[in-house]
């Protein structure tokens, strides 16, 4: 035990050596994430998980994984990683310059990385979070059913973000035979052979509004604030993180104060603390809170919140719960179709 991870030999029947990746530089905040922890909210344990869920799932799809395999969430400034074995990876989310042995690599594509190579990231030009998945998935020990690291609760594998010197194990893929064949084919070709269109999954202009439907206490806003909520351009405050994004702008006010007892919170809730500066809750939101809830961001638009960085502008567009539910169903269907398309493409080995 200790700060360093141990490299353990995998004694599978096909490979005798452990697939591992060493962290040379950790980047600003590089953390293991999967889909998060469900079923523990009653104990005060939140979900956490990848903030930009579609980007996370597509990184897994492009690296031939199940949708919930553990990937790395990279924040603003990426890490430098040394590969101790051949690997098949994919990188999605916010555009970030990435190089394998100083050769630029494409995002939103399956990439083959050779043993001994170094994957180095630059800073993100725009957006806030990128996802690095590796075929097989990162092999952290699950904590309460998830490999996600909850930064705020300091809960999850290794109990902290990645550090220089960490050695990350990679799980062996389930179907070793086909995957190995794929690897052999892939390594003969230059990278990448194909990419998917990121536009449906990343708002390149960072200008699309986030759909917001009224929260429990929306009707308690005074008339001016009710207008401002949907007309003004908020600014993401510097202290924003996975817990929540503080929205700076002309303060919003309630027509009359409301006394609340603590109630459950969910990701995407827009709360109004006494300061009048709303907080849009992220995936590490507290499980309960006592601030008035003035709105709820459509779940289909949460990835846009995940990709706004401090200083970015943010606007809301009104919608209804029914519209938000429909948008989420459509998004889920598109995502599943894309996962199927990718899986078929990978099967062809093209």
């Amino acid at each position, binding site marked *: 035990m200790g700060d360093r991870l141990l490299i353990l030999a995998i004694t599978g029947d096909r490979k005798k050596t452990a697939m591992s990746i060493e962290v040379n530089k950790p980047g600003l905040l590089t953390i293991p994430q999967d889909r998060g922890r*469900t*079923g*523990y*909210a*009653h*104990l*005060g*344990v939140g979900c956490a998980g990848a903030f930009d869920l579609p980007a996370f799932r597509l990184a897994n799809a492009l690296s031939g994984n199940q949708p919930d395999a553990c990937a790395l969430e990279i924040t603003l400034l990426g890490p430098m990683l040394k590969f101790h074995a051949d690997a098949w990876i994919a990188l999605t989310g916010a555009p970030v310059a990435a190089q394998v042995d100083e050769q630029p690599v494409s995002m939103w594509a399956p990439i083959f990385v050779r043993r001994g190579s170094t994957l180095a990231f630059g800073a993100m030009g725009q957006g806030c979070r990128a996802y690095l998945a590796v075929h097989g998935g990162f092999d952290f020990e699950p*904590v*309460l059913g998830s490999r996600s690291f909850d930064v705020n*609760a*300091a*809960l999850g594998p290794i109990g902290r973000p990645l550090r220089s010197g960490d050695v990350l194990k990679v799980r062996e893929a389930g179907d070793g035979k086909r995957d190995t064949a794929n690897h052999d084919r892939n390594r003969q070709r230059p990278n990448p052979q194909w990419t998917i269109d990121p536009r449906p999954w990343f708002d390149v202009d960072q200008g699309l509004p986030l759909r917001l439907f009224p929260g*429990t206490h929306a009707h308690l806003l005074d008339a001016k604030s009710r207008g401002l909520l949907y007309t003004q351009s908020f600014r993401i405050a510097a202290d924003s993180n996975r817990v929540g994004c503080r929205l700076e702008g002309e303060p919003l006010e309630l027509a009359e104060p409301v*006394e*609340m*007892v*603590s*109630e*459950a919170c*969910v*990701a*995407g*809730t827009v709360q109004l603390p006494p300061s009048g500066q709303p907080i849009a809750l992220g995936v590490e939101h*507290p*499980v*309960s809170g006592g601030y008035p*809830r003035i709105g*709820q961001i*459509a*779940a289909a638009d949460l990835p846009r919140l995940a990709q706004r960085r401090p200083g970015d502008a943010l606007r809301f567009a009104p919608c209804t*719960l*029914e519209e*938000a*539910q429909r948008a*989420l*169903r459509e998004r*889920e269907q598109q995502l599943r179709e894309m996962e199927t398309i990718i899986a078929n493409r990978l099967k062809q080995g093209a």
Partner: protein
Amino acid sequence: MDFTAEPLCEDALLLRFGHVMDTRINARVHAVAAHLRATALPGLMEIAPAYASLLLRFDPDAYAKGSDSFCCAVRSALATMPEQNEPDPFSSREVEIPVCYGGAHGPDLEEVAEHAGLDTQQVIDRHTAREYTVAMLGFAPGFPYLLGLDRALHTPRRVTPRTRVPAGAVAIGGAQTGIYPRELPGGWMLIGRTPLVLFDPQRDPPCLLAPGDRVRFRAMDAGEFIAVSKKGGHGRPLADSRDHG
């Protein structure tokens, strides 16, 4: 049964049984949570009680019409449930929490006593005299919000919160008392400390306390505090009547 159901987001419903901190309302929240857990409603992913409300998270794939159809399923599941307005002592666990009050472990005990117009021993006597209910867990994994604090002990939070409150700190915040499960920032008044480990993700169950549990505090001296700490601080419930029907 009297409650409102409000969709919080696309896949979560909030059942609200009242708007205040009240042991009877909270008892109903726990009774409904237990009933729904026993019913095993299809697609019900998460049940999280708060003081006067209950969060239910569902799988959208299981309910084609979203929260409307889930809400119908919940209402029919609760239609058969008998009214219950009193905490049921036979359906919840009682857990004893030993506390070393005052001194370095309870730096705010004297201020609490001053505020209450009592001496420190009277504060300890009153804090240990009551039976509390775990109304909910929140703020941090394993942090119990306890209902039932003696009115005389209600004390406002500190004007400037501490940046570091040690794990096991037993504290008073307004009308509530609670226990910090790990080192955290916090604004509650610290009156003592327990050596018990409240939250350990490697333990099953990870939390010493569960929503609806009944809690009693017992004063311990510094020597016993050290002895229990050395044993790893693993407490166990006095009785678990849930396991025996």
